[in-house]
């Protein structure tokens, strides 16, 4: 495998506490050497990338994406989804199990990671917690982990039964896996297509109350507390309500292993962005009230939020060009996450660049126990993103490498242009 030397850049590696002018050498898929400017010893024969004026950071990690394979290749494939990931600076994505069939077996878990899928970056499957994600019988966590699964979840079909959730948390703790919950008490959200509030009333749409999320998070935390001695790890997916975040904050104070992620759309947009029935603003959990959105920003800035994750959810054009209440939930997000985080978290709200990058790499890697990722320390995987932190650009959905174009951020100004994405020592994307 050829070597790559990235010269003249600013290396930011939050996990290693590095933010300095450094050259870096990748060899055999790993970080081989880091040295001050012009000080690399072993760069002879390496492909040289000139990163003058650019930031070199650990490759970004998105722990919540839907790649639609197996079963729905017309929406997205592992190849197209990971191509979009690479374009967005991501070198690893964790793929949700709501495929067809549901990824509840070691066979499908392995199938998703096979080189034949043509992935541009590393795919970490998240397996179903129950067979068929039906919420009844648990899957074989140890076998799934051995096949490469990094967590279990019934994402989109939350585990409502207390007994099943308790069993899931206990079994996952024994297997050393994280349990990810899409927190929604679906008994409170029948027929609803947006957040419950003044906007849903005005638009004549049935609403999902914030309590549908917060009450299930509270229930899950209660179960984690009961199982305290077994040290289960609960991760709350796409947190969207102030109530849920407050419960997570309190659980952490109580010493429980409860983590959470927030999606860019939930810290940027509100129910008002549904506008005139824009199906590109329809997702689950829905865009919430301004107070909820503000709570997400606050949680990110004060550190209770552990990761930014996009919930990249591609759909075919024709599926979104229908009546709002009939349209499927979800938006794509892999190519806009970095640009939105830099523009808003860093530039607008003054979160230090290193902390923003940590939420997009070091912290999600730690959360799912992805060894050798989320850092550029010598010996770790040669997963990196090289970007121009100052460059402003306009996102055009039509130019997306994803098969899908369903995004509310079409035409938005982004900050930070990806120049190269390097996945395990290979250039996965070059602008």
């Amino acid at each position, binding site marked *: 495998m050829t070597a790559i030397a990235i010269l003249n850049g600013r290396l930011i590696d939050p996990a290693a506490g590095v933010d300095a002018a450094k050259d870096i050498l990748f060899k055999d898929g790993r970080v081989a050497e880091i040295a001050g400017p012009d000080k690399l010893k072993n760069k002879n024969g390496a492909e040289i990338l000139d990163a003058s004026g650019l930031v070199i950071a650990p490759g970004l990690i998105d722990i919540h994406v839907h790649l639609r394979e197996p079963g729905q290749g017309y929406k997205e494939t592992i190849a197209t989804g990971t191509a979009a990931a690479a374009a967005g600076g991501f070198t690893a994505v964790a793929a949700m199990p709501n495929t067809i069939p549901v990824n509840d077996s070691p066979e499908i878990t392995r199938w998703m990671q096979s080189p034949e899928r043509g992935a541009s970056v590393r795919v970490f499957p998240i397996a179903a917690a129950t067979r068929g994600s039906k919420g009844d019988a648990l899957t074989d966590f140890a076998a799934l982990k051995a096949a490469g699964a990094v967590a279990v979840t019934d994402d989109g079909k939350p585990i409502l039964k207390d007994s099943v959730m308790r069993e899931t948390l206990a079994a996952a703790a024994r297997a050393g896996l994280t349990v990810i919950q899409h927190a929604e008490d679906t008994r409170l959200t029948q027929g609803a297509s947006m957040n419950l509030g003044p906007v849903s009333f005005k638009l004549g749409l049935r609403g999902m109350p914030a309590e549908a999320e917060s009450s299930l998070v509270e229930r899950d935390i209660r179960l984690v507390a009961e199982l305290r001695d077994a040290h289960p790890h609960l991760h709350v997916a796409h947190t969207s309500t102030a109530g849920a975040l407050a419960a997570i904050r309190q659980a952490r104070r109580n010493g429980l292993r409860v983590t959470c992620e927030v999606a860019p759309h939930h810290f940027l947009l509100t129910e008002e962005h549904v506008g005139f029935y824009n199906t590109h603003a329809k997702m689950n959990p829905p865009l919430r009230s301004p*107070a909820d959105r503000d709570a997400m920003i606050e949680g990110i800035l004060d550190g209770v939020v552990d990761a930014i994750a996009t919930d990249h959810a591609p759909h075919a054009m024709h599926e979104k060009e229908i009546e709002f209440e009939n349209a499927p939930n979800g938006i794509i997000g892999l190519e806009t996450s970095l640009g939105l985080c830099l523009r808003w978290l860093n530039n607008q709200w003054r979160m230090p660049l290193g902390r923003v990058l940590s939420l997009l790499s070091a912290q999600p890697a730690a959360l799912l126990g992805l060894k050798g990722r989320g850092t550029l320390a010598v010996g770790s995987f040669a997963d990196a993103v090289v970007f121009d932190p100052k460059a402003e650009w306009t996102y055009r959905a039509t130019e997306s490498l994803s098969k899908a174009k369903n995004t509310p951020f079409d035409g938005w100004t982004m900050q930070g242009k990806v120049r190269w994405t390097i996945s395990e020592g290979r250039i996965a994307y070059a602008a």
Partner: protein
Amino acid sequence: MTPAAHAVRRPLLTPPVPASPFPYHPGSLLSITDLTVEDVSRLLARATELESEDPLLRDRVLAKRRIALLFYESSTRTRTSFELAAKALGADTTLISSLSSSIEKGESLKDTGLTLRALGAEAIILRHNSSGAPWLLEEATRLPVINAGDGMHQHPTQALLDLRTILAHLRRGIAEVGPESLTGVTITIVGDILHSRVARSNMLLLPRLGARVLLCGPKELLTRQAAAAGPGIAIERDFDSALRQSQIVMMLRIQAERLSGLQLDLDEYKAAYQLTGQRLAAHAPTAVVLHPGPIIRGLEITAGVADGPQSAILEQVTNGVAIRMAVVERALLAEAQRGPA
């Protein structure tokens, strides 16, 4: 902990809320809020003029223009009055209903709209069971679209014909309105507010003319969010108290087809919210009673009240034709009158 406890302490700039996503056709009527008070006044004036015009002259206003009525829900009043209104202006109309068309075979609203446009439709009148469907149709076809009722959202021509009926009964002149035309007037809307597009359209129109709107109904059918829909709207759960304050009472049907699992005790409901002759005599002996129909006699209203001297229910129906003539005319002539958007 309350959400406010974690609200951002310093004011942060956040992304702006989007404005209207595309320029509507100036002839479209998607929401009652698309109309300014001046627009409403103009439509009322035209309704009156067109109503009294010689039918042979009126016939030339939209002679041979092509209008499609696209109905995804059953309808008696709205469909017939739109059809009669369009025909009175000389237009050719065609009716497409979901049960006797390719909609049954799974054709999308977008494709149905594009097909109608290709067939020469110059405007589409849409009744649909999904809120917001008119936006989808307008975006796909860029034709003037008239919302004839979309899900739980709006029914703008119903609000206009209700307004004409109210003005006639208050003797305030039916051909012109301004921001104070209904000052001092209280209108109570009673019943299944949650599922009612008629309620939403009226509560967003009448306060802009100075009226106070009281919403009355049980918690299951009238959530507190309703009062935040706009200015001039308040909730009064006690029917008798609302009646005592009102010059106009608008009764609504319980929309059984939209209850989606909600269980209601109908005896309890009738005891609290049925408009009976006794209740009307005791609390609102001079109020005008409206109902957009269909009426379920013996449920929200007794037969005696529906047929009684205070009822203006059939006048509403008659006013529907006049109002819809003005709205259909606007759909096809607005562009010519206003110039390119």
